């Protein structure tokens, strides 16, 4: 097996665990609604309470995403966002923050067209810690997962309710950083996960791996985040933040004075809820 790279993700999850709480993982789409606003927001997330940042790479055909993130990607693309600009954004972010872990999340085609080797070199140099690529299951590990691990980037795998005990080892084999548990069968931002069921699923995954398990897809409110945080190592919130952002845009999808604040304010409430929740399960 390929050696797992150690990144900011490992340090941050360890720190949160020592504090007896889950990590808050926040998702925003890079370049939504424009590069400058998105960069300002990105830089504001850690102070607002984000422990880990997932930066969405816009794609025209996001088959695992619900309407909120689909629309965010299209807004970003319309404003001229590209993968190169997203990497540049990370480079800018790292000038003032060298500790918050940052993961790129998206689909394979933009990376494939950018060129896998060039992408890994540029992403690593920019300060990216890990990758979540929705349409690359373990069956396609040769494409990006194994080269990424070799380049020192964590490859974070999605585990889902359909991933049974027989398949889990395959899914976990080349995973690094953390395991992203998709709490529902469905697309991002759709159904609300049942915290008890999710807790059992996290426990099941943890029987197979020492990696932290973060839970996402469908977590929207501070109360839901707290409920999930009681039984997981991390809580991912995405669509709710995108909705908060969208709510501030003008009639032509442009940012307004309230755009960044609307998102950071929700992040603050989510962070408070997550930080106020003790982890139940022992490691």
């Amino acid at each position: 097996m390929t050696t797992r790279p150690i990144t900011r993700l490992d340090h941050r999850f360890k720190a949160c665990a020592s504090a007896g709480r889950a990590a808050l993982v926040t998702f925003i789409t890079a370049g939504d609604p424009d590069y400058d606003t998105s960069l300002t927001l990105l830089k504001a997330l850690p102070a607002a309470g984000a422990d880990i940042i997932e930066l969405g790479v816009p794609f025209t055909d996001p088959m695992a995403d619900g309407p909120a993130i689909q629309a965010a990607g299209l807004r970003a693309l319309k404003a001229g966002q590209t993968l190169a600009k997203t990497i540049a954004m990370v480079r800018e972010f790292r000038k003032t923050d060298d500790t918050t872990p940052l993961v790129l999340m998206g689909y394979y085609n933009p990376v494939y067209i950018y060129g896998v080797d060039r992408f890994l070199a540029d992403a690593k140099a920019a300060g990216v810690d890990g990758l979540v690529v929705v349409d690359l299951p373990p069956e396609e590990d040769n494409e990006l997962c194994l080269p990424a691990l070799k380049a020192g980037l964590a490859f974070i795998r999605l585990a889902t309710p359909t991933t049974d005990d027989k398949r889990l080892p395959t899914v976990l084999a080349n995973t690094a950083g953390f395991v992203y548990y998709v709490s529902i069968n469905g697309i991002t931002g759709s159904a609300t996960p049942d915290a008890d069921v999710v807790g059992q699923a996290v426990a099941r995954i943890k029987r197979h791996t020492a990696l932290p398990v973060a839970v996402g897809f469908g977590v929207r409110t501070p109360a839901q985040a707290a409920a999930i945080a009681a039984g997981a190592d991390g809580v991912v919130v995405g669509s709710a933040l995108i909705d908060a952002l969208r709510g501030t845009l003008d009639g032509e999808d442009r940012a307004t004075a309230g755009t960044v604040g609307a998102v950071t304010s929700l992040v603050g409430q989510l962070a408070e809820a997550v930080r106020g929740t003790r982890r139940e399960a022992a490691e």
Partner: protein
Amino acid sequence: MNVLNSFRTGPDENGHFGIFGGRFVAETLMPLILDLEKAYEAAKADPAYKAEMDSGLKHYVGRPSPLYYAERFTEHLRKGAPAGKGAKIYFKREELNHTGSHKVNNVLGQILLARRMGKERIIAETGAGQHGVATATLCARYGLKCVVYMGAVDVARQAPNVFRMKMLGAEVVPVKSGSSTLKDAMNEALRDWVTNVHDTFYCIGTVAGPHPYPGMVRDFQSIIGHETRTQMEEQEGRLPDSLIACIGGGSNAMGLFHPFLDDPTVQIFGVEAAGHGIPSGQHAASLTGGRPGVLHGNRTYLLMDDDGQITEAHSISAGLDYPGIGPEHSWLHDTGRATYISATDDEALSAFQLVSKLEGIIPALEPAHALAKVIELAPTLPEDHLMVVNMSGRGDKDIPQVAEILGTSL
């Protein structure tokens, strides 16, 4: 299935045709496509499944479809050809199948498979509506729930098929995301599948998507080529010299081509939709105007920009309006075994009218693209050259659209 076909090259066990194909799907779907692969392999080996298929194809679909010598079309093209030139043109009459196109061949196979797997809810994507109609039809036949995703643009331009699907008891969901055409319908179907994994079977309409779909759909459509082989042997005592078919995703073409891939004397032409012309950028010709990328579960030629963002295809034909192509075609293109050319909207429209008048057969706009290239190729070939064009669908569904283009109000 003909045993000889198991000697064909692809796909390998990971679903690859050369560098193309594969399984580029979200983890939620992986266990499902692995199950599907297993179920399909088991069905292939089960004589009961084959018997059920054969019976359905004969008594419900109406196979075999005729191989018809298009005499007046042939003579017409000979008139404008140099002496001794003008290929003898045959139509493989897939438009005579129940539901009016080749799509039903594949749907029957998948629906029988879904039944074996105990799935009760069927979803499908559709462009022109031919695959949607075929799926709605077989769901009615077997009492299964049917949901068809169709781009909102296509819902508007293919109104007769939308109504047919509803008559058959299917729910038609207009898809408004992206460009509101076939690729977006496929995105939406995949989102449905991810959400309803437990009871839902995704009946993909073409030779694309994650493994095992491209190979499986090709197997179901290969009956077109197998019959053509036998029928040509009966009528002419030999193999055809060339095959020609239109390509969106490429299932009617793959079905005709596949049984002839190992016959080097048989020339193979696939016709993509050139829309307003390749230089205009408004077309659906992935092989001619695209490059390899990853979308909808497979690596294949795709229309995209320099950032890897998928661009919108354009074609007069809703069934060809897709920015990708089945991975096996990409591989046949790269290996040079098949030649891929393209026909514009205007060329297809004139072929549509010409063949209607000469043969009393109104073709769908999709095979009209293949017919447009027959008009170009046949006069350059000798009179004893046997050319088979796949008449993959009938044009009834296109009447309102063509009437509007020609300025006739119905």
